[in-house]
């Protein structure tokens, strides 16, 4: 018996040593990190045709200012460098190279736009720099096998389009569909997802397609064409300005189809109000976040926090612009990833933690929608919910869809 007196203290010593190891662990820093600072880079269109997305970068900069005011992440302040690329891929390449090679940022966060991100896709993976939470819904960002350093954030456009297709097949299988889409990667991605979702019924169901350029003054002519095709379902893939025009024109010429409006364009303040709320009754869309111009959320703590943030830190941006909500939620996700990194702030660990988000609740996302990632699942948000506009607000219908 007395021979084993040392076992307990020995075990205690071992346990204590193991427990103390993290405290003794080396702080591991990648480029752009010091004891007091984390450098993060971004490209965003602050000029040119796509300058309406400038609010993304501005809101994110404001959010990081707020985090810094609250003490930073594990004691380190965020140094956020956001450069203008004017939505022009050559400029994006130039600015990203500056951020990676000259500014030595730890990671590039939420670069915006599919062509800009395509231009830097190979470079980021070759240089092994995280291209994290890219601000576009193209499906190709969730491919960890070939591009382990790139991850999206929002539900992919094709996922959303398939939800509409499924809804249609279930509720109106003999529908005749007319599609209006923006003639770029954004619009075409939706159309592809929609057609895939309809399967072999696509050719029979889709009776008309019309596109427009984001530089066109109006889409009135396209609406007239679509009406004359005799369609009774209108799949509308636009941005708020053109959605407003489409809703108004369709109403004015006496066309009242089942109107499926995509998520990017469904803001109450930016699209429905200018068109006229009474003209938007019955529109179906999907969402994964709380529309701040929708009164049903105004009692929520989430909303109140967001309003306080907008008023204190982000006065330059328009509260009716839904980009501010998305940027806010996305920035929260990044802060969560960095918090999870602790003192191991290497690029490898950043990607590892980004691929390690389990049931994360993000403010301003719908109740029931949680972020989940894993080494084989690089789609953080995959859930959406259908909603219908009743003339005053979006009413959620059904349940949260998607895995």
């Amino acid at each position, binding site marked *: 018996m007395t021979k084993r007196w040392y076992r307990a203290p020995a075990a205690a010593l071992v346990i204590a040593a193991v427990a103390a190891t993290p405290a003794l662990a080396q702080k591991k820093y990648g480029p752009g990190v010091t004891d007091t600072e984390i450098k993060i880079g971004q490209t965003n269109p602050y000029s040119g045709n796509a300058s309406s997305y400038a609010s993304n970068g501005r809101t994110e900069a404001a959010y990081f200012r707020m985090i810094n005011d609250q003490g930073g992440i594990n004691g380190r302040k965020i140094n956020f460098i956001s450069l203008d690329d004017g939505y*022009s891929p050559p400029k994006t390449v130039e600015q990203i190279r500056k951020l990676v090679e000259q500014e030595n940022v730890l990671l590039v966060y939420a670069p915006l736009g599919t062509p800009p991100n395509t231009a830097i896709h190979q470079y980021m993976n070759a240089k092994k720099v995280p291209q994290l939470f890219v601000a576009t819904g193209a499906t190709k960002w969730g491919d960890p096998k070939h591009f382990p350093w790139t991850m999206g954030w929002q539900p992919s456009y094709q996922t959303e389009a398939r939800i509409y297709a499924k809804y249609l097949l279930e509720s109106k299988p003999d529908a005749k569909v007319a599609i209006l889409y923006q003639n770029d990667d954004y619009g075409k991605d939706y159309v592809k997802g929609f057609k895939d979702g309809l399967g072999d019924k696509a050719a029979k169901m889709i009776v008309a397609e019309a596109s427009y350029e984001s530089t066109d003054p109006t889409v009135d002519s396209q609406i007239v064409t679509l009406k004359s095709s005799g369609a009774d379902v209108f799949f509308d893939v636009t941005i708020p300005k053109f959605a407003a025009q489409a809703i108004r024109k369709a109403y004015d010429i006496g066309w009242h189809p089942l109107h499926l409006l995509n998520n990017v364009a469904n803001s109450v303040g930016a699209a429905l109000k200018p068109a006229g709320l009474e003209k938007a009754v019955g529109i179906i869309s999907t969402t994964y976040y709380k529309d701040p111009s929708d009164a049903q959320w105004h009692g929520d703590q989430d909303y109140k926090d967001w309003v306080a943030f907008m008023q204190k830190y982000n006065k330059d941006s328009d509260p009716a612009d839904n980009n501010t909500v998305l940027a806010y939620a996305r920035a929260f996700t990044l802060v969560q990833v960095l918090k999870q990194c602790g003192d191991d702030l290497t690029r490898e660990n950043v990607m590892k933690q980004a691929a390690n988000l389990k049931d994360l609740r993000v403010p301003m996302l719908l109740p029931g929608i949680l972020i989940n990632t894993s080494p084989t699942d690089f789609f953080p948000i995959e859930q959406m919910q259908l909603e219908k506009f009743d003339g005053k607000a979006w009413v959620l219908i059904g349940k949260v869809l998607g895995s």
Partner: protein
Amino acid sequence: MSATSEPGRAIAAAGEAGAARRAWRGAGLALLLLAAVLLPFLVSSYHAFQLTLALAYAIALLGLNMLTGYNGQISLGHGAFYAIGAYIAAILMTQFDWPYWATIPVAGLVCLVAGFLFGLPALRLEGLYLALATFALAVATPQLLKYKHLEDWTGGVQGIVITKPDPPFGLPISQDQWLYLFTLAVAVLMFVLAHNLLRGRIGRAIVAIRDHPIAAETMGIDNAIYKSLTFGVSALYTGVAGALGAIAVQFVAPDSFNVFLSISFLVGVVVGGLASISGAVYGALFIQFVPNIADDISKAAPWAIYGVFLIACMYLMPRGVAGFVQSAAARLPWRETKKG
């Protein structure tokens, strides 16, 4: 007789002075070339990349200057030829596995033909109307590139990704440095060709057409052929530039070639200096680097700063940087010609 008489001595002196000036200028150019070659080894990879783009723009601006500065035909649509050159390089490299250096002459030739064909109907248009026609070309280009029936070739809205070429013969330099040197070599070649072209008979014919088209016609210059050929050659230069730019950026997409690119080219040509070869270099440096400077100055409204720069440049140097340099140089004390 000869060198002892008053006029004879003056001519001989002028000849010597001219020879001395040419020798100085030649030495200056050689020094500049040496500095240009050494540059990528002295600055970071990122700056070498920026300078490569600036060189490509310089070639494009030289082409546009030939058409607008020397020949007086305003083009707001050279972005289209830049795009054609870029896509030719991309398609040949990705779909047909051509080596990058072989795509340059093809890009140039295709644009030569395209420019000539566009120049033919453009003969009937003057000034503003030509500007509109070329502006229409610039606006239509992204739409054409996105056209679904051409998608198999152009990659549609997704664009085409190009692999960066490696330095040949296993030279111990980085890819960026090699690309810069390659682009520099092509640029020097194009500049020398342009210099010879514009200094000779053809250049004088082109300028004559700009200044006095009717007199030129009377002198036996076939205006139609010269104007169309000038359009073609200027498109050739811009196409070569587009190919070089595409290889440097490693990506082409319709959004890269919008109206603003064509407008930037015009800005570059005027700010650099119309009807001047060195103007192309000044202009290229302006359109490559000034937007970045403006961005540094103001995040809220960077293009407002750029606009202010533009207006200020035009006030201070209405004939462009090259014009300013020329008039400043003429006022240097040792250049004053003795009177009487």
